[in-house]
């Protein structure tokens, strides 16, 4: 006979304000099998856990039910407490009377009744629970970082410094990400390259870091501690081991009209190129859509001039497969496409540019060697008008509903840098709100107004149009209740940012989740902000949500701490709640393997006794418990009812349903 204990939590007033917890505990006492029932203010607290442990020992409990918050929150806490009191941790069931009850009901009587039903349901289940033992799996002591922006770089350096091997897989020809394109950085205005490139070099020189540039993730198998990842190494047409980065090929290549992506297409580059001077690796790459040799078979000039014989037109994509214990996703962002915003005239006027384009126009290594000249005629712009929130905070369907978070600060930065370098320039900024929380951030923005005389106008721009070669910016000045039109030489749009689109594929490969805006979702918004819901997968940088460099770096280091915490372990406990097939019932139909997203199911031929000394050989399913994630897809698919999930057997689920229906 089972001896069940029930523990009803108040969760302060979270549960107790809507559920009569004393009544729940009282009513439940008379349930068959229940020998102990209590209620307490905070069951998860030290004292609460003590109460649970003591009751287990004193009343010889064989199973317990905790009526409290979601199992996602404290199942692990109570399992541990049970184990410490000598009870198998899988003899614990949680009745979620907070999220599923008190938080969503107003009426106390109804909520109390529902809480009683939920607790009864959990009692019905725990009676059928069997003690389970967690298995063990080894940990591969190597981490994968996807994306080599500042987030990926920082995470990789921290993990590598702790003594673990790290691979950075970067889709572009060089690491560095967006930060490499930025000129100076708020809030201190130090030069971006000066603080970024040393870190890039550190990555290249670190004995524990392997940079796989111009590469992408193709396939991910396995699970925490034991991922197996297939990586595509795209054909560069240049042998990475031979190229010395001398750039003679760039000089000699006759096909010079490729758009320079690094400079936001503001100038051109040859078909064979190194993205920028401090690129890591400092190795050329051929753009196959532009190279004459690859398109027509003629040319071959770069090969003739390359002193070390690095050019290889025959190169093909190759694939490598590597094992990792942990994965960090750091795929970053891109500014949104502005096709939905023709009111700002971006596609029609060369002198309407985005903020990232302005970064390149102000950068010494940019298309104008750092002299601010407008794209149309190369003149110095005398009046520059910035428009903030372009496509951000937009619920009309044209843009993004969220605040991009970084643009108020970088616009203040741009405005100040321009006023500093070209004091005769008039700078206007149209804004809806200036959002600059953070250490020294609001002070930074106020400096733009008070010290640099930047003209901030509260109001949005309605249209930008070209009148006799002049850009006219018409917008609101809400403080003065006026409509103003400002003649401008250059208009800069603070375009919203969005996650790099390839993150969707990455999320699918890693079976982790993304939100409606394609940002990767963290496991818990407050308490597990760098962990994805998939064990062993961590999130750093803008792929998780809009953020600036200081925040990105903090998050990347936090990720590294989590990864190191995982990789120092030699073995991981595996979840024992996995599927297994009843071989006597299985008919080997293969349907379960078809639905298993983790590839945990295989089939084997087994000999079965038929009685009378006869045997038969049948094909039956077999689940690899180390790979199975316990999702249960196979159990509902199996037509013979042979597949069942430990800890969540069909019998247990049915008993829960019955308990609910009984009322």
């Amino acid at each position, binding site marked *: 006979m089972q001896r069940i204990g029930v523990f009803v939590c108040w969760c302060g007033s979270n549960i107790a304000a809507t559920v009569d917890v004393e009544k729940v505990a009282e009513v439940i006492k008379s349930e068959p099998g229940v020998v102990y029932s209590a209620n307490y203010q905070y069951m998860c607290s030290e004292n609460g856990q003590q109460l649970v442990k003591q009751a287990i020992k004193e009343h010889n409990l064989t199973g317990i039910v905790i009526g409290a918050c979601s199992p996602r929150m404290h199942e692990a806490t109570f399992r541990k407490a049970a184990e410490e009191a000598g009870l198998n941790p899988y003899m614990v069931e949680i009745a979620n009377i907070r999220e599923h009850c008190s938080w969503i009901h107003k009426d106390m009587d109804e909520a109390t009744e529902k809480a009683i039903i939920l607790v009864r349901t959990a009692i019905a289940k725990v009676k059928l629970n069997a003690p389970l033992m967690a298995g063990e799996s080894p940990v591969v002591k190597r981490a994968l970082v996807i994306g080599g922006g500042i987030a990926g770089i920082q995470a990789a350096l921290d993990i590598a410094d702790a003594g673990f091997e790290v691979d950075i897989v970067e889709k572009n020809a060089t690491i560095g990400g967006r930060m490499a394109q930025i000129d100076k950085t708020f809030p201190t205005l130090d030069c971006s390259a000066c603080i970024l490139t040393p870190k890039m070099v550190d990555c290249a020189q670190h004995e524990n870091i392997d940079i796989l540039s111009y590469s992408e993730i193709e396939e991910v198998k396995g699970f925490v501690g034991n991922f197996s990842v297939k990586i595509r190494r795209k054909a560069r047409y240049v042998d990475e081991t031979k190229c010395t980065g001398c750039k003679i090929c760039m000089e000699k290549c006759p096909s010079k009209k490729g758009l320079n992506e690094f400079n936001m297409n503001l100038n051109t580059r040859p078909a064979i190129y190194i993205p920028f001077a401090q690129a890591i690796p400092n190795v050329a790459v051929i753009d196959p859509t532009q190279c004459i040799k690859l398109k027509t078979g003629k040319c071959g000039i770069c090969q003739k001039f390359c002193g070390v014989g690095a050019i290889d037109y025959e190169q093909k994509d190759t694939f490598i497969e590597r094992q990792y214990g942990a994965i960090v996703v750091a795929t970053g962002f891109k500014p949104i496409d502005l096709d939905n915003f023709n009111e700002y005239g971006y596609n029609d006027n060369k002198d309407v540019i985005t903020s990232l384009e302005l970064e390149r126009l102000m950068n010494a290594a940019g298309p104008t060697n750092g002299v601010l000249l407008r794209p149309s005629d190369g003149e110095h712009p005398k009046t520059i008008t910035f428009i903030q929130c372009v496509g951000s905070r937009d619920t009309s369907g044209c843009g993004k509903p969220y605040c991009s978070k970084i643009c108020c600060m970088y616009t203040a930065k741009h405005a100040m840098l321009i006023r500093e370098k070209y004091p005769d320039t008039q700078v206007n900024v149209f804004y809806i709100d200036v959002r600059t929380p953070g250490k020294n951030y609001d002070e930074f923005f106020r400096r733009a107004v008070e010290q640099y005389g930047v003209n901030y106008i509260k109001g*949005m721009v*309605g*249209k930008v149009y070209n009148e006799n070669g002049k850009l006219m910016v018409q917008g*609101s000045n*809400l403080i003065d*209740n006026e*409509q103003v039109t400002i003649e401008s030489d250059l208009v800069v749009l603070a375009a919203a940012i969005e996650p790099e689109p390839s993150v969707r594929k990455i999320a699918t490969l890693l079976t982790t989740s993304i939100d409606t805006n394609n940002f990767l979702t963290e496991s818990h918004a407050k308490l597990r902000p760098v962990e994805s819901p998939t064990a062993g997968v961590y999130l750093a940088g803008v792929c998780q949500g809009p953020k600036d460099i200081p925040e990105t770096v903090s998050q990347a280091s936090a990720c590294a701490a989590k990864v190191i915490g995982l990789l120092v372990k030699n073995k991981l406990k595996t979840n024992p709640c996995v599927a297994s097939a009843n071989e006597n019932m299985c008919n080997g139909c293969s349907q379960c393997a078809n639905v298993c997203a983790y590839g945990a199911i295989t089939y084997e031929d087994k000999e079965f006794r038929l009685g009378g000394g006869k045997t038969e050989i049948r094909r039956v399913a077999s689940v690899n418990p180390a790979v199975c994630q316990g999702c249960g897809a196979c159990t509902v698919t199996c037509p013979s009812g042979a597949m069942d999930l430990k800890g969540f057997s069909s019998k247990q689920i049915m008993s829960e349903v019955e308990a609910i229906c009984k009322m």
Partner: protein
Amino acid sequence: MTKEERIENLNRLSGTDVRKCMKCGKCSGRCPAFHEMDIKPHQFVSMLEQGKIDQLLQSKAIWSCLSCMACVERCPRGVAPANVVEAVRDTVVRMQGANGIKAEEIPPIVDELIPQQLLVSAYRKYNK
């Protein structure tokens, strides 16, 4: 009608949710009739939100709005300021009794030269 009923009526007539406005001023930044309006497009939205009905009903801007819908097109929050203008205009017209314009009343000369859009907007205004 009580004031509350009138506010509710205006909200319903406009069919737009004025609470979604984030006070960006893009509507007024775009409005071609801005300088002719005593109450500006963004103020229509904000004043309805605050229940300043009497002022709205006094507004002369309801006759200068072109019903061009530029404000509706541009609003980043899916609010329709022109619909608020129109709701106020309808309310005023209805309070005055039927004084709508009839097609026969439009002078033939105007009929020839007037831009199509203006005619449509005149109907929107006067023919309720």
